[in-house]
């Protein structure tokens, strides 16, 4: 267990929000609502759960994290940077976000960025890869955990449920799916597009141990992540209830921010609301 000051982590999350919003404006990168929605989850994972980063990055038995909702890459990149996963010259590359020739784009790439375990961006790929990693870990005798962060719209994909059945059959108790359940997908309410609920019960029916959490409560999330495996012998699905655009009043629950890029003025208002200026 890591000794954690959650006040500091809440501040970390606010700063991450600020820099992601600024970068979106500067580089013209969309998916801001999607990033803000999962920043507390990422903070709980990287500061409250996946300890010893980045020193374990070269070890084959390290914990793995896959951002299956790859369009939240702008958030992941800032998290990895703050965790010290990149050398300094790569931070220059990050500062040039949006310019021709940088490594940092709208989705996590397959090569070049330490800490990105798999290229994502096409939805519905992360969980099958995570299962492969966990089964491989089991064959090698590693006790590591594999975390996969998915979005609710992503659960539309059939590949998610093929994977869910596999993990259930294999009783992968150190495999964790976190669902950033913000109730929106790209062009509509997730519940209206495809019948998603009861989401926790769906995972249970597929052989998983499922629970629901406040996806913005970093303490509750960290504590939940640290009780993996949970003794049920099953893979774990955490339905994290979130608000798309969380942290900035004029972005919260407004799906225009799936695509919209903020103006300079909006960046300032947002940073003010986040207590950063």
């Amino acid at each position, binding site marked *: 267990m890591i000794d954690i000051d959650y006040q500091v982590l809440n501040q970390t999350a606010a700063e991450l929000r600020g820099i992601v919003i600024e970068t979106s404006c500067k580089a013209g990168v969309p998916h801001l609502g999607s990033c803000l929605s999962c920043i507390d989850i990422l903070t709980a994972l990287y500061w409250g759960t996946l300890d010893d980063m980045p020193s374990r990055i070269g070890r084959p038995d390290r914990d793995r994290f896959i951002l299956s909702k790859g369009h939240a890459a702008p958030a992941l990149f800032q998290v990895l940077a703050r965790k010290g996963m990149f050398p300094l010259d790569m931070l220059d590359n990050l500062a040039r976000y949006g*310019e021709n020739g940088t490594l940092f*784009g709208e989705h996590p790439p397959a090569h070049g960025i330490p800490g990105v375990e798999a290229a994502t961006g*096409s939805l519905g790929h992360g969980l099958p890869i995570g299962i492969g990693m966990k089964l491989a870990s089991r064959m090698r005798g590693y006790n590591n955990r594999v975390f996969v962060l998915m979005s609710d719209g992503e659960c539309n994909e059939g590949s998610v449920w093929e994977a869910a059945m596999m993990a259930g059959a294999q009783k992968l108790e150190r495999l964790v799916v976190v669902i950033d359940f913000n109730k929106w997908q790209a062009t509509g309410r997730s519940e209206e597009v*495809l019948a998603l609920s009861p989401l926790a019960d769906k995972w249970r029916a597929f052989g998983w141990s499922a629970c629901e959490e406040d996806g913005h409560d970093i303490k509750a999330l960290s504590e939940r992540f640290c009780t993996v495996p949970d003794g049920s012998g099953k893979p774990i699905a955490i339905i994290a209830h979130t608000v798309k655009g969380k942290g900035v009043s004029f972005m919260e629950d407004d799906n225009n921010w799936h695509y919209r890029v903020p103006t300079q003025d909006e960046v300032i208002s947002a940073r003010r609301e986040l207590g950063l200026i």
Partner: protein
Amino acid sequence: MRNIFAKELTAHATDNDRIVMLSGDIGNRLFDDFKKVAPNRFYNCGVAEANMIGMAAGMAMMGFHPVTYTITPFTTIRCLEQIRIDLCYHNLPVVIVGTGSGLSYAELGPTHHSCDDMGVLRILPNMTILSPCDPIEVKLALKAALEHDGPVYLRLGKKGEPALHREPPVFAIGKAITLRPGNDVCILGTGPVLAEALTAAKMLENECVSTRIESVHTVKPLDTALLGEIFNTFKLVVTLEEHSLIGGLGGGVAEWLADNSGYSGRLLRFGTADRFFEEIGTQEYAREVFGLTAEHIFAGIRNALQ
């Protein structure tokens, strides 16, 4: 391109109640007018593209003419077997529309690029591939696709592509359209990248090289009558596409040339290299990296002519 597509589709749907629109959770607001005109013939299929294609097949079997729409790799390669069996094997009238084709979404990374879509779909029996070069051709290609009794893949760029045709040409599936007459070299191009060819032609003109340009909007079936004529007439024939050199227009022309002996014309192909575009940047930057800009085309042709 996508705006004219949405507008024209809405117009067709007003008169033709066989048209059903299936969208893969993409195109926010783009289909608002369609939904007004035909509220019962619009389905947001969610992020579930394989299911979307299967659904389209079922509707087509019942007499409808479905149109599927999302970002190109997700409505093509993501659901390839559904396209192969449900659409092509049954030979059903379904229009698959891919938006952001080629390197249109260069900034989004390789998951969203599609320089392999035509290669993969061209192998499938019964498939027709339409790759219009500008908004005018989009309008005409959509009309032709909706009149075609079999699967059609309509390959679109993004939005804001310039008009390359001065006035609406006659459009028929499988029949290329002359964009510019010329005598010394002939460029067979497909898609919005033809804008680069037009600029290259002007640069060549300054060097007294006269360039003919054909918009090969139908990549399958190829306009073989035109190929015969062109390879008889020109010493240098050039293909141009925002797609891999493997499997697309250049690949198809090379196959045809290998099968048809007796032509003296030389083939020079411009397309993307056999690798993922991992550099982040704009579409213009991506074209620069792959040598698909007017300057590269001009230089390549000038070299080949020497």
